[in-house]
Structures are given as C-alpha cells and as structure tokens.
C-alpha cells in the first residue's frame, strides 16, 4: 500500500538516510584507506598521506610480502589448520547433533546437560594448557584443532536443523527396514548441505582469524599460522623502536615495515574478502537459527 508521509516523517527519514550514510562511511573509510595505502610508496605516504598520482604508486609492498618466507609459510599453515579445524568441527558437531535430534534417544538430557554446563563453566587457561601439555600435543597441529573443536553452539545449531527435517522421511525408511546408520548417511546428511556449509564456514573463519591458541601452544616459528606472523609485522615492530640505535638503519627498517604493513593486511584478508559477499547470507542464517534456541 502507499503510505502518505507527513512532513515530520519525511524529515525523520532524511535524517535516517544521512546517519546510515555516515555509518557506512565510518566502516568503509579505514578499510579503503588500507587498500589504497597498500599500493603507495611508503615515503610519500608517510610525508604527504594518500596521493592519486600514478608515480607515487608502487607494488613494492606486495613483492616484499610474497617473497617473505615466514608469510608464505604462515599462509600455508593457516590454510591447513583452518581446513583441518573445519572438518573436525563439522564432523563432530553433526555426529553429536543427530542422536540428540532423535525422538526417545535414551540419555538425551544427560548428554545435553553435560554439553551445556561447559558453556558456563570452564577450567580456565592454565588447567586446559596443562591437559594439552600432558597429552603431548604442544607444538603439534592437534593443539590447534582438537581443544576448540567441540562448540556446543554448533551442536545446538545442527540439532535444530535436523529437527526441521520431516519426520515422515525417517519413519518411511524405518518401515523399509533401514538402520540408523543408513538413515543418517543416506537421508539426513544429503539434506543437510546448508548447515554443513554454515558450520564449516564459521569454523574456517574463526580459525583463520585466531592467534591465541597458536601463541600458547606452538613455540616453533615454522608452525606459526598467518595471524602470528602478522602480529610480528603489524604490532611487535611498532611497539619498541628503541631497539635500533643506528638512525639510518632505523629509517630504512621503518620504511620497510611500513611498506609491508598494508600489503600484509590485504593479503591475509584476501580469502575472507573473496568469500564474504557469497557467504554473508549463510552466516546471517546461522546467527538466526542459533538465537532461536
């Protein structure tokens, strides 16, 4: 229907548009700045700020980053950890969620309580670290993949999804003599592609962006994921400039570190930037299903 707006309404709507536009600017300006700056000559950037003259542009930052061994290794490690973590998380969550969605599953309440308690209580950093250490997982990929693989929220998400699959399908299969095994793998899983996708993406992005577990569990630099490499480029460099006494060397180093800062941010975010527009609506769905329960 056609709503007739009063003058007051039109004023409010205009103000609303202005504020939303400002919000978009606030979000976009820093991001666009970083992308543009990654293509700039650092000396010009330091002295004059952004410039749109072609001669002030440079791909030096990208060349340095792509030739940097630590960065490449970090990238490969991050892909391995994120893919591994996503696979383990998805398998464990789906497997656990299916029995919990079956009517009359004996022990459902007990298992659910066991899981949910862990959402509110935890042993804390040190006791968890000691367990990982005692299992001999320090300095292995398992320390990154296993301790966080079980996320109760994921189980709830998958269970809610399974419950939405029409029960008649299970019934019909049971009458035909299909076992639980057959029903799960032949009927439930093929219908669950959207939820598998959502869980896998959440796990992948979460692992890709995290640095904490890697920092405490992996001492060996050759095992470090991208975020730890980034941390040393972006944060540790800039905090203690007092270490270098030679003025000239320091200026050179500053220039170098300035140069790779922006390009390293862009390169490290690339997988997510490429995926983001396609996956945004799935992520959104995930939040919605999760908030219902």
């Amino acid at each position, binding site marked *: 229907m056609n*709503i007739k707006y009063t003058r*007051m309404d039109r004023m*409010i*709507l205009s103000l*609303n548009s202005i*504020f*939303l536009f400002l*919000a*978009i600017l606030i979000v976009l300006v*820093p991001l666009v700045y*970083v992308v543009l700056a990654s293509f700039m000559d650092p000396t010009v950037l*330091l002295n004059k*700020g952004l410039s749109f003259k072609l001669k002030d542009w440079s791909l030096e930052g990208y060349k340095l980053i792509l030739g940097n061994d630590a960065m490449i290794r970090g990238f490969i490690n991050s892909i391995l950890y994120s893919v591994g973590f996503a696979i383990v998380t998805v398998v464990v969550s789906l*497997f*656990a969620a*299916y*029995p*919990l969605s079956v*009517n*009359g599953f*004996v*022990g459902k309440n007990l*298992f659910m309580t*066991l*899981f949910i308690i*862990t959402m509110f*209580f*935890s*042993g804390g*950093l*040190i*006791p*968890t*670290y*000691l*367990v990982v250490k005692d299992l001999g997982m320090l300095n292995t990929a398992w320390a990154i993949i*296993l*301790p966080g693989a*079980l996320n109760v929220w994921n*189980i709830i998400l998958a269970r809610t999804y399974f419950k939405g699959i029409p029960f008649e399908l*299970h019934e019909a299969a*049971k009458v035909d*003599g299909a076992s*639980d*095994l057959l029903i*799960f793998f032949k009927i439930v899983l093929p219908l669950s592609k959207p939820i598998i996708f959502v869980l896998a993406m959440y796990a992948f992005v979460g692992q*890709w*962006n995290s*640095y*904490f577990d890697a920092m405490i569990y992996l001492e060996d630099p050759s095992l470090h994921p991208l*975020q730890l490499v*980034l*941390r040393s480029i*972006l*944060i540790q460099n800039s905090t203690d400039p007092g270490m270098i006494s030679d003025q000239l060397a320091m200026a050179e180093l500053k220039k170098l570190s300035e140069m790779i*800062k*922006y390009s390293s941010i862009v390169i490290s*975010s690339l997988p997510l930037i490429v995926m*983001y527009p396609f996956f*945004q609506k799935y992520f959104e769905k995930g939040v919605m299903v999760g908030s219902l329960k």
Partner: protein
Amino acid sequence: MQELMKADKNTAIPMQSKKGYSKLKTNLKYIRENYFLYLLIAPALILTIVFKYVPMYGAIIAFKDFSTIKGILGSEWVGFANFTKFLSSPNFGTIFMSTLKLSFYGLILGFPVPIILALMLNQVRRAAIKKNIQLVLYAPNFISVVVIVGMLFIFLSPTGPINQIVTLLTGEPVSFLSDPDYFRTIYILSGIWQAAGWSSIIYVAALANVDPELHNAATIDGANILQRIIHIDLPTLKPLMAVTFILAAGGIMAIGFEKAYLMQTAMNLPTSEIIPTYVYKVGLQAGDYAYSAAVGLFNSVINVVMLIVVNYIVKKLNEGEGLY
C-alpha cells in the same frame, strides 16, 4: 512392527512395560538396538570430557602448591593461599578495577548501538538498498583481531593519518597508543566499529517480523515514524534486549584476552592490564601455574555471581521476564 515400536519410545513403553521390566532394562535394550547413535555422539563426548571436564578438575591446583613433578594429585593442599596472595598483592586493586571498568563501559556504550542501527535499517524501504547497507556494516566482524589492532596502530601512531590531522590543528601529535588515558576509549570504540553491525542482525530480524497491520493502523491514527518506533518497534525488541543484556552483563568479567593483550604497550599497562592478561603472564610466561589458576578461578566465580545478580535485577525491572 518391532521397528515402529523402537522409533517412538513413548508408544513403545506402555506396550512393553509388563511386570518385572525395569526402566534400566528397557534403556539397556534401547542402547543395544541403537548402538550406532551412541557411536555417533562418542567423539563429542570424548572431546568434552578431555578438554572441558578434565581441566575443570584440574582447576583444583588453585588450592594447591602445584609442581609439575608431583602432579595434580601429589601436590600439597594450601587452602586459599593462592587467592589471598592475589587479593593482597599491590596490583590487585588496579587490575580488578581495570577489568571491571573496561567491560562496564564497553557494555553501556556498546549495547544500544546495534539496536539503534536495527531501528534505522528497518526504516529503509527498498530491500536491495537495505541488503547492500547490511553487507557493508557486517564486514568488520570478519576482520581478525590482529588486523584490527594493527590498523589501530597504523592510524593512531604518532605519524599516522589521525595524528597528521591532529598535528595540523594543535601543532602536536597525541600519543594515543602509550597514554593509559586513551586505552579504554580506543578499545571500546574500535569494538563497536567491529561488532555493532553484526550484533544488529537479531534485532533487524525481530523487527522484520512485526505485523505490518500494526504500523498501518497506527499511521491511520496519525502516528508519525518516531511515535511508531517508540510504541511498536521498541516494545517488540524489549524481550530480546533483556536476554542480550543479561548475557552480556554475565560475561562482564569474561572480557576477551586477545585484543587487550595485543593493544598493551609498556606505557599503558595501568589501564590495559586486565585479569585475563594477568593470568596469561603469571601463568604461562612466569610459570606460576597454581597462582594463575587461582586468579582465573576467582574471575570465573565473579562471572557466575554477576550473571545471577543481573538476571535478578532485569527480572524485577522486566515484569518477571528474565533469562531463567
């Protein structure tokens, strides 16, 4: 027929429960017949027990004089010695207050922003435009904390773009990153920048479910947009706001370690040292496991107490509607 009975326990039990059939027997029969379901849930149970429950048990080292050689059981009990050590340490007041202030201000300033964003987005009539605005506003949520802090360091460094403007205006750059007075502001504002859009999703969805007839009727009665927001939209969001607020307040001491640790510089420690970063430093860097576990446990207990208290208050204010 057997198969059907198995499928639904509710109908199966009355038919099977003759005299002598105990509940245990029925359950064991169920488990035997459906062992595959238990195989499926086993990996999750094992992970939970190993990485969640064993550490909970391990938290008793907080009450012990723990040494890795003697192990958890062999170490001697020391009662609350580790706790009193923390409570009486000269740092306690500062660290405790820093943690509380950082979370409290973060909650108070951060909580309304997603709601306001959702109300504003709800006024955008054209679906395509709304979608694109959301696409942009959600994006920062997917940026890693390392990159966020890295960007803060770039933008706020003495020679960075913001200080270039500040220098132009006042003649002197401001040392945002080392001055303890700026830590909380930077932490909270950058947090809102990153999370507000994404947090608005649930509110946007709740508003989309409002019956359009309500708005039409109100419009016919002469209500303008602002009045409709106050009398239709806000009451719709109220239950959701209550739940979100309780959960956020309950996590007030569970503030993230990752960002605060990255933002710490030697100079801003008076405000940036919070309990989780302290636990990490005394525990893993200095190796004082028992003391660190005690500080962590202290923090968790405060958290649970906060959750209960806030839930009680919100229940009182919200006509008996709380989280539980």
